[in-house]
């Protein structure tokens, strides 16, 4: 399996997909246990979505749902969503915008949302969505009726709303993304924004989607897409016997009980940093840091393509170059 990719340039990701195709290998990325399912729905146009610049210029109601942008995307509120004065939101956050947080904990983002923080219990998102849908359709919800009716009234009045879907919501509703689609359908003035942590996760998802119609978990031999080709299931069922890791640290980010198999098979790690994975890898190839020591492009959470430039010289090749050398050697 070829795994990682969310911290690589689009160019390296495309090389990785080519390499997997050539070898008939499995390919998966960190979105597999992160926001993959949500991005798939976005790429399938199941949601109305928009650019971050549009949010800055137009948005009046912002909903941070299972997302602590303050800690995970620290410039999100100050650059694009809540605080900047946008074209149509000249009076700033005090008068022109309203921020709402829905979360299991009073995160830093929730603190900023002050009077509009809705605390839910873990896995409470489903119940919350159904209650909100009831409230939006004029029914009195059984869950927190007063608060839900108040929230529904705010959301109905929005001229240009955005729901920032964090990993808290994604993990909570799992395979049940249709309920989020149904909710979004009831909110024609709202846009869905996937909150993505790694800088180029969406880039990989888009590239693989163009190639195969799926955002992750693909086995090129037979051209199949299945949960069993996810990094988690492939390790749990011990169905892979070698792993190439690019720009990711699965030893750090996966459940530890999966790692005995990872540690028992040959692992090749390409990364600019020393990581837990690079320490246990059979072969580690250090590479240049993209956006600092190597140029390329990346896709932002809203789909905008961002040019990364090289600003420092490095003795290390980029991951893109290393993967090209792999292809040549094969």
């Amino acid at each position, binding site marked *: 399996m070829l795994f990682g990719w969310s911290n690589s340039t689009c160019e390296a990701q495309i090389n990785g997909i080519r390499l997997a195709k050539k070898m008939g290998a499995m390919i998966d990325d960190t979105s597999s246990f992160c926001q993959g399912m949500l991005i798939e729905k976005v790429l399938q146009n199941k949601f109305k979505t928009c650019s971050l610049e549009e949010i*800055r210029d137009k948005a009046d109601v912002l909903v941070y749902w299972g997302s602590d942008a*303050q*800690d995970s995307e*620290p*410039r999100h*509120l*100050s*650059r*694009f969503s*809540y*605080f*900047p*004065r*946008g074209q149509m939101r000249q009076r*700033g*956050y*005090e008068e022109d915008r309203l921020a709402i947080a829905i979360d299991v904990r009073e995160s*830093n*983002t929730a*603190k*900023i949302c*002050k009077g509009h923080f809705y605390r839910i219990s873990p896995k409470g998102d489903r119940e919350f969505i159904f209650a909100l849908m009831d409230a939006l359709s004029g029914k009195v919800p059984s869950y927190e009726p007063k608060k839900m009716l108040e929230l529904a009234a705010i959301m109905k009045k929005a001229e240009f709303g955005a729901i920032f879907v964090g990993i808290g919501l994604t993990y909570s509703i799992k395979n049940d993304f249709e309920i989020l689609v149904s909710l979004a359908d009831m909110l024609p003035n709202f846009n869905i924004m996937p909150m993505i942590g790694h800088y180029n996760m969406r880039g990989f998802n888009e590239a693989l989607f163009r190639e195969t119609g799926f955002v992750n978990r693909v086995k090129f031999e037979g051209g199949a897409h299945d949960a069993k080709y996810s990094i988690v299931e492939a390790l749990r069922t011990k169905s892979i016997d070698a792993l190439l890791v690019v720009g990711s640290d699965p030893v750090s980010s996966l459940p530890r009980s999966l790692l005995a198999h990872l540690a028992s098979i040959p692992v090749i790690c390409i990364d600019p940093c020393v990581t837990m994975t690079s320490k246990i890898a059979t072969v580690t190839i250090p590479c240049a840091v993209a956006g600092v020591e190597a140029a390329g492009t990346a896709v932002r959470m809203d789909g905008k393509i961002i040019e990364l430039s090289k600003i420092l010289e490095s003795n290390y090749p980029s991951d893109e170059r290393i993967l090209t050398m792999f292809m040549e050697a094969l």
Partner: protein
Amino acid sequence: MPSVMELYQLLPRTNCKICGESTCMAFAVALLGRKRKIIECTPILSENFKKQKEKLESLLLPSAGAEETGMIVHPELCTGCGNCVVACPVDVANDPKGAAVGHAPTNDKVIFKIVDGKVIASNIRECRRFGKNRVLCYACIDPCPVGAIEFV
């Protein structure tokens, strides 16, 4: 509040006595006590010490401001998000194409700046809490979830 040692480490540490103090350590103590100004150390004004001078200024500014407006910045709490930079109405007025629309400041007229991931305050006289027509503005406090800015 920075410590004497923090300030001392940033000085040239040559004990040249140009400032009139017997040692750089004595000058650091005087700096902390606001009896001396950074510019009285003429060697630090050279290009070689640019970074150190800026760091010194940032360490000394919060309390310099506190005397005038009561503003205190706690750099250890600051996450560098820039909410205050963008939300401050003075920054919006003084940098309409930069801070006002969410970018990093494009000029030196702003009150808040993020340097090395931490907020520093300058142009403190521009603060709406300062001067004759002062107002009790909360525009930099409310957007900060970690309480890195306070007024005393």
